[in-house]
C-alpha cells in the first residue's frame, strides 16, 4: 500500500473503532442524561411531598386540640392530596394524617404509662377532646418510576403551646 497518497480515506478498521467508540459514548451519555432526568423528577417529587407534609403538620399545630378534632370531623384519620404527585395506588390518597390514642402513642413512642389527657388513666384506647397533647403521624406516599416512595413525620399538637 502506498500510504503517502494524499487523497486516501479512512480504513474500515478506523471507521469501525470510531463508530464503536461513538456508540459506547452515546449509550453512556443517554443513560446518564436519563438517570439525571429521573433524579431531577425524583427530587422535585420529594420536594413537593416534603412541603405538603410540613404544611399539613403546621396546619394542625396552628389549631387547638379541639380545633384539630373538629378538622378531622370526629374521625382519627384524614387524607389530603398533594398536587403534582401520583397516588401510590388507584383510589388511595397521597397524604394521610393519623391521630393516635394514648394506647397507640404509648406503643409508638415506647412510653407504657402515657397519659395524654391527664385523667390518671394511662394508655386509653379512646381519643377525645380531653386530650392535652395529640400525637399525629403524617405521611405522604407517591408513585415514582422506581416504585412507591413515602415520607413520614411524627408531630404533636398541644394546648397552651401556641
Amino acid at each position, binding site marked *: 500500500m502506498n500510504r503517502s497518497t*494524499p487523497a486516501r480515506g479512512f480504513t474500515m478498521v478506523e471507521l469501525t473503532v470510531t463508530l464503536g467508540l461513538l456508540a459506547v*459514548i452515546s449509550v453512556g*451519555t443517554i443513560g*446518564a*442524561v436519563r*438517570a*439525571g*432526568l429521573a*433524579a*431531577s423528577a*425524583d*427530587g*422535585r417529587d*420529594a*420536594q413537593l*411531598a*416534603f412541603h405538603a407534609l*410540613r404544611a399539613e*403538620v403546621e396546619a394542625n399545630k396552628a389549631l*387547638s386540640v*379541639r380545633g384539630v378534632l373538629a378538622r378531622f370531623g370526629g374521625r382519627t384519620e384524614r387524607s389530603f392530596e398533594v398536587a403534582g404527585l401520583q397516588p401510590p395506588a388507584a383510589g388511595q390518597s397521597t397524604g394521610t394524617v393519623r391521630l393516635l390514642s394514648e394506647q397507640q402513642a404509648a406503643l*409508638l*413512642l*415506647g*412510653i407504657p404509662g*402515657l397519659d*395524654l389527657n*391527664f385523667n390518671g388513666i394511662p394508655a386509653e384506647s379512646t381519643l377525645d*377532646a380531653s386530650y*392535652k*397533647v395529640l*400525637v399525629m*403521624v403524617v*405521611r405522604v*406516599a407517591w408513585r*415514582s418510576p*422506581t*416504585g*412507591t*416512595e*413515602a*415520607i*413520614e*413525620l*411524627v*408531630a*404533636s399538637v*398541644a*394546648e*397552651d*403551646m*401556641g
Partner: protein
Amino acid sequence: MRPKGDERGVALVVTVVVLLMVTASLASYLTVATASRRAVGAELARERALYAAELVAAIAVQRFAHSDTISLTDEIAVEVPLASALVGGGSGTTTASRLRASARIRPLSAGSHLVEAEASGPDASRRIVLTVRRIPAVPPPSAAVALYAAPGAEGVGARFGGREFWISGFDETLAGLPGGAAALPAIAVRDEAAVDDLFDALSSSQYPRVVGDGSPPSIANAAGSSPYTALRMQDAVRALAERAHQVLEGNVTIRDWEVGSFGSAATPRIVVVQGDLTVRSQGQLLGAGVLIVDGDLEVHDDGYLHYDGLIVVRGRGQIELETRRPSWYRWFPAWWWEGSHLRGALVALPTAEGTSRSRLRIEDYVEIQRSEEALELARRAASHIRRVELQSWREGVR
C-alpha cells in the same frame, strides 16, 4: 488535507479533551439532579428532630401543668421511630433507627419553669428551650365590671337609670361583710374614650352608686395596669368555654316565674349559652360559677339575676340589666323582695365581627358587687382546667 508533522496526534488530544468535558458535564448534571433529593432528606431529618423535641416538650409542659408534685428529677424520654425515610423501590420499608428525644423541666425565678428538650437521630439533632408558667384558669378581674372593646373600636355605649343600682369594686364576702382584698375600680375600660362615655352617661347624683378604688364614680382605664388584653382574655374564656359543664344552644329565655339554675354554691358550674340570654317577666336566673353568654345578656321587665361568680358576655358585648320593683311590693315587708345581684365580676368581651363597641345599660334595682369569695366559686367551677402560659421559645441545633 494531510496534517503537517507537528499536528499529528492533535485529533486524539481534542477527542480526549472533549470526552473529559462531556464526562465532567454529565457528572455535574447528575450531582445537581440528585442534590435536591439529598436536601429534602437532610431537611426531613431536621424537621423530624424538631417535631420530636416539640413532642417531648409538650408532654413535659402538660405534666407540669397537671401535676402538683413534679420534681426536678422528672424527665420525659421518648423514642420516635423513623418508620420510613425517602424509601424507594418498594413499599416503605421500616428502618431500625429511632430518634431519641428527652425533656427536662426545672424551676426558674418568679414562678416560671424552664423546659429543655432535645432530640437526636442518625442525621440530625435539634434542641428547644421554653419557659412556661402556670396561669389561673379564671382570669383575675380588673374591676367589678370590665368592659372590653372589639379590636380597633373605642368607647362604650353606656346608660344608667335611677339611683337604686349599685356597682362596687370593694371586696365583699357572700355574707355582705368587707373582704380582705384590695379595692378595684367599679368599672374598668381600656381606652380614654370609654372613660369619657361612662362619665357622660352618669349624672352627678348617680356618682355615689359607682364606688371602688378612687373617688366616685370609680371608673378607670385599665389598659396600662391590667395585663389581660382582650386577646388574652378571649383566650382564657375560650379555655373555660371548651371545658364547660353545660352548653345551651341557641337563645335562652327565662320568664313567667321560671327558675333557670346555672350551678350553686355547693356545685358551681361553667355554663355556656350559645345565644342571647334573656330573663324577664318574673323569671329568675340563679347560679354560681362561670356563666359565658355568646349573645346579649338582658335582664328586664321584672326579671331577676342572682348569680355568684363570673359572668362573661361575648358576642356583641351587649349587657342590659334592669330590674324594676313591682308595684305590689309596697304592701309587703322590705325583706320580701330583693332586686338582681351579681356577686363576683361582670365582663363584656365582644368577639363578634363588626361589633363597634360594648354596651352597658344598668337600671333600677341591680347590684354588681365585686366579691373574691364569689370568684372563688368561679375558680372552683374551673378547678378541672389547668393552664400554662408559654413565655419564651428558643430553638437551636445541638
